[in-house]
């Protein structure tokens, strides 16, 4: 994995991305343009369909007047940068403890069956990779597909998502359980009246005692 692949096209920023990149550069004092490297790499990765080729590293090294190895260091350090081609829909499945306990292993084996090896691009232009915690543990298991999170996934949900993507259908981001973001399930929600809330507040003893009674 030390050598990233070469893109045949010579890379250069599109007009819009050049404007974006220059806006990033302006955030840093003169002579310190190199500090913008992460944002610039990110802009380049988005332009290049989700991955960075060695051409891009060269281009950005010149763009920021940095040695190539310094750009390479950043690009390899952060997992947000892909050094190999990814599919049009890139699945990043969380494999850290909460997601694993909630069934991400099963999702992983499904991805393996449907798409293939990790970090490889399937014929229908999908790819997947296991990542560390995505920071949405309360909605475990979580998969990030391109820019959106797909949460509370069961194996069937993931299968539907993959099928929809193959059939070029829209997919719905967010929780696949019947709930709003990380709120409790809709069926468990109990809406209290104001009187009931007051009643609870009145009965509540000091926090320490409450624990003891329970």
């Amino acid at each position, binding site marked *: 994995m030390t050598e990233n692949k070469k893109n045949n096209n010579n890379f250069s920023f599109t007009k819009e991305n050049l404007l974006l990149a220059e806006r990033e550069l302006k955030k840093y004092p003169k002579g310190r343009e190199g500090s913008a490297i992460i944002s610039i790499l990110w802009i380049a990765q988005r332009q290049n369909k989700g991955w960075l080729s060695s051409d891009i590293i060269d281009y950005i090294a010149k763009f920021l007047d940095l*040695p190539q190895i310094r750009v*390479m260091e950043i690009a390899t350090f952060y997992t947000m940068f892909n050094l190999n081609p990814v599919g049009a829909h890139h699945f990043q499945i969380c494999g850290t403890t909460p997601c694993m306990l909630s069934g991400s292993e099963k999702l992983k084996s499904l991805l393996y069956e449907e798409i293939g090896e990790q970090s490889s691009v399937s014929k229908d232009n999908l790819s997947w990779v296991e990542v560390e915690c995505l920071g949405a543990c309360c909605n475990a298991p979580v998969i990030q597909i391109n820019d959106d999170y797909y949460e509370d996934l069961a194996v069937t949900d993931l299968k539907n998502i993959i099928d929809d993507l193959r059939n070029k259908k829209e997919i719905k981001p967010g929780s696949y359980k019947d709930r709003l973001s990380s709120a409790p399930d809709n069926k468990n929600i109990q809406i209290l009246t104001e009187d009931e809330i007051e009643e609870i507040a009145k009965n509540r003893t000091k926090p320490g005692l409450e624990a003891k009674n329970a």
Partner: protein
Amino acid sequence: MSKKILINGREYEFEENLTLIQALELTDIEVPRFCYHDKLSIAGNCRMCLVEVKGAPKPVASCHFSLSDLRPGPNGELPEVLTNTDQVHNARKGAMEFLLVNHPLDCPICDQGGECDLQDQALHYGINKSRYKENKRAVDNKNIGPLVKTTMTRCIHCTRCVRFTSEVAGTEELGAIHRGENMEITTYLEKGMSSELQGNIIDLCPVGALTSKPYEYHARPWELRKTESIDVMDGIGSNIRIDSKGSEVMRIMPRYNEEINEEWISDKTRFIWDGLKTQRIDTPYIRENGKLIAVSWDRALTLLTKLIKKTDPGRIGAIAGDMVSAEEMFLMKKLMEKIGSNKYDCRQDGSILGNQYGRSSYIFNPTIAGIENADAIVIIGSNPRMESPVLNARIRKRWLTGNLNIYVVGQEHDLTYDYTFIGDSPKSINLKNIPLNGSKNIIWLLGDDVFLRDDGMDILSQVIDCAEKTGAIRDDWNGVAVLHKYASRVAGLDLDFLPQDEKHTAQKMASSSEIELLFLLDADEIDAKNKHTVYIGSHGDRGATNADIVLPGACYTEKNGLYMNTEGRLQETNRAVFPPGDARDNWKIIVEISKRVKKSLNYTNFEDVRAGLRKEYPIFTNINHIESDTFQCLDQLSDQKQKLNGDAFSNTITDYYLTNSIARSSKVMGECSMQKNSIEIKNG
């Protein structure tokens, strides 16, 4: 500001700007370390230098803990540091255990074995068993050029090499890619390194991850005999240690000298040693029917004696090469005078720099260490990166600390630091062009190549004029600096090994038919035509192939000799090994010739020669001393009329790796040169 602290119960006082490890070093307390190096920036990632600070919740890394951060106790007690407690020992043991988790147990086949920091420190802080049951990580080796061999599995990620290349060498080629356990040190896409100082990362590497490729599996450090000497590859005379085994030089290492090379040496200095063994002349040769045939010393010297007697003394000349010692030039000069000739020159490259204007007109007056006090440097007709990479690193070191303006007149090169380009011809040397306002300690650095031009002395005079006007020539600062490329040049000028008139300079002697017999004392860079030539030297290079009589001499590792570096600092080489075969010390050869021609130089041993030299030239008395000079002679020079022509400066070093006969005999230098050329072709 100084600060009192207690170290292991004893009270000390230090400057407050020190770090803890520096303070501990001053008290001779040994602190183990891998990543910390006093010439590099602080990384603090090996955690071996942990010490206990009273009041701190955890052991602290002494390499990046400043003394100014130490706090007094609650009742105003002195801050206390402990280095010999159980806590410190256990903390270091823990750090060491983690370092050893992924370190292979291949010491028996590792070139670093015996001089490995990790090995040595594991003796004190290692655990004899591993608690780690998982597989060790393995990392692919990287090909980073013909000089440095990598065994990346052994790497402990101290990043000294990365910091060295980006800070000292200034080439930013090495980096650490990926992260955590997957971190790897590499160049970008495994390109070969291009720095002329890359060999130093071998010394810096505390483990066997970066080792010397040419020295691979050659010897163990405890088998080597170590001789302290100096280098003659360039004009600064880096201090080196020659490691030899039996009759062979096995490797060359740097020796610490803050005044000259700090602790770096260039790649040519370090990897030249295979050239010391190849293409050697180990027996005398004479030319018969156009072919060189090996003969005995007696026959060669008899023929030479006949030749000398046959030739009119006025038609005998001598040229000294770039790597000969002061004693040899002294004897050669004596011999020529006894024979009755005054035609000798030590400037085979055709330089016109003489000694008529005094010593300060041809030495590096501000001194190499003085570069660190400069606030402006004007580089004229020189490429210091090629001519003296170590000195160039010193300029870079000064540049990194800021407030240094560098101006270049001459060719534009990548010098590893930023500079303002003024112009390419001497006409640009003008105070109107060079904004030096407010600079106090200005260095006017002139390359050797300046004096290959006809208007060389006028340029010097113009520079001295500018230097005087900018106040760069004062009692406490002389900013006129000539950077010599050759180790023997300053000694030659000091010895007056120069022709009496302009008709008999080295190049004119070589080409004119006036000279019938020409001695080439290790001089390889000159083509002698239509005359008998006698080559006294070590390598079968240009000088020997065209000579009529070849007398095998000794290399700089095989002789004792005095050398003046470009600063005018006297240094000496020491013999590490004996010359091969029938080769002899050059001084013996010259004395022998003198006896044969019945003009005997009365020297029976080397001490006599040196004493004789010192008697006539007391400047060669004090080793490691720079003889100071008055500046009056410089004044005369600056009053000369200045006729500068508009030709652009050119630099004569086209290939850094192949500048002398030893380097051209070296396979390693050849490989480096090939790699460099292929990089240049690729980059267009």
